[in-house]
């Protein structure tokens, strides 16, 4: 059954896509290839997964202040996720998305949700994000 959760838009916009879920924070610099959209932090639990076109669900960013540059470049290169859902506001990610909007008029919405809603999103669920932060979770058909 579909479920609706209300998140807080850090950067408002509409997007939809399949959820790529990680429970581990990720620094985009050193963690994501802007050329391919692949998670390249070899210590990360989702190393090897590709974020392009997905709704990337992970707790928060981490580490390097170059993360905003990687997000911006991935928008230019067309490898960016469709949207990002975090547990905590990560200003460096927000910055990358805001500069991408200012420079290329392309929006990667960033939504922050509660722990309960975060845990409700499963890998492979289809998510529809509205500008007010509403997320419709269409659970993946299992079995």
């Amino acid at each position, binding site marked *: 059954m579909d479920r609706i959760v209300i998140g807080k838009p*850090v*950067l408002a916009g509409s997007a939809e896509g399949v959820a790529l879920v990680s429970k581990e*924070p990720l*620094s985009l*610099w*050193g*963690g994501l290839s*802007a050329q391919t959209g692949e998670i*390249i*932090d*070899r*210590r990360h639990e989702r190393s090897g997964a590709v974020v392009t076109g997905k709704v990337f669900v992970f707790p*928060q*960013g*981490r*580490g*390097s*202040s*170059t*993360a*905003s*540059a*990687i997000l*911006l*470049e991935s*928008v*230019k*290169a067309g490898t960016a996720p469709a949207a990002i859902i975090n547990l*905590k*506001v990560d*200003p*460096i990610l*927000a*910055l*990358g998305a*805001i*500069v*991408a909007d*200012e*420079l*290329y008029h392309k929006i990667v919405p960033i939504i922050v949700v509660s722990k309960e809603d975060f845990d409700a999103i499963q890998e492979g669920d289809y998510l529809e994000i509205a500008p007010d932060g509403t997320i419709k979770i269409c659970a993946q058909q299992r079995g």
Partner: protein
Amino acid sequence: MSVMLSEKDRRMLKGEYGKAAKLAMSILVRMAEVYGAEEMMDVTLAHIDGVGLLSEAGLEFAETLATLGGRVSIPTTLNMVPLDVQQWEKWRIPEDYARKALRQIKAYINMGCIPTCTCAPYQGYLTPRFGQQIAWAESNAIVFANSVLGARTNRYGDYIDICAAITGRVPQYGLHLKPNRKGQLLLRLVDIEPAVMMNDAFYPLLGYFLGRVAGDKIPVIEGLPAQATDDQLKALGAAAASSGAVALFHAVGVTPEANTLEEAFQNDTPEQVISVHSADLAAAQTELSTAEAGAQLDAVVLGCPHFSFAEFQQLAWIIQAQEGQSVHPGVRFIVLTNQLTYSLLQRSDLIDLLTGFGVQIVLDTCVFHCPILSLEVKVVMTNSGKHAYYAPGELGVQVAFGSMADCVRSAIEGNVCRRETPWTGL
């Protein structure tokens, strides 16, 4: 719009100070909303990380601002840049890459930035004062400025840095405000011998552990020696800002906002108390190393963050003790630093000793942001927690973490060897 703007902020936003200031202020105001800041505030120094990574979008952003007439309004230093500005040909950097990199650097210099080209801006030029409100980017510089110097900056990322430099304004939020600088976690060094704390490798290992447990919280370390050097605290902070999002730590009796435990916690109680044992440092070294001992070594990389004069001195003494041995022919020994430190080296007699041993001194840049290492390089050794943390993902190499002395010995032997075990102090 919820953030309160000054008259000048509003005029910048309207474009009365030019198109670059308008774009910069627009990004800052949107960021103020992200932060939930109620007003904007002045900053009096900026440090630009956005110049370091060469990307199509980053170059476009810098040139757009420069073309729109962007000029910094406060003293602004540059982080390391995407190549060794004077010697890139010597390091065989592709010309197409170099041309773009030089354009990116030029855009920032044209906007009035000082070409310091270093990720250790706190060890050379325009060092921030205690309590000074600044807008610094580069995670290791941020944590050093906040923690060791007591200046106040948030974790600014690429591109907001130049916006702050042009406007002289940032959202009033986070670590700019004293109550938000209060310690949150207490880390007690339990069974770590004083001799261990004299070993340089202790600091990045502790930093790695710190980042892992602290995340983005403010840790307070109890038990660090008061004589810990700036270079040791730099290594600690750089590692903590890699494995975690640490932007500020306090060390009781060492850092300026932590003369006492009470001061560090602003008379509040820690959310959590964590004991740090020798075993945690041993585990940190294991986690930081993906290459096995004995693995054939291709390169040693030191100077992440950029080497100081004192670190060169220390390296020279270790090399002198090797009785004329030099780097194995299969190994490159790279030390990264900046022009300022290099000019001090030129006044010493260390350069001949270092280069005679086989050290290649690379200026202005970083092996992560500049293609200095060839693709044939598979195993790298370093004394930097930050380098060890990022190398496997960024360079696709295996990495071994070890003390500076072990890096030198391994470079001579041509394989990863460890004689020092920092956590036992031997």
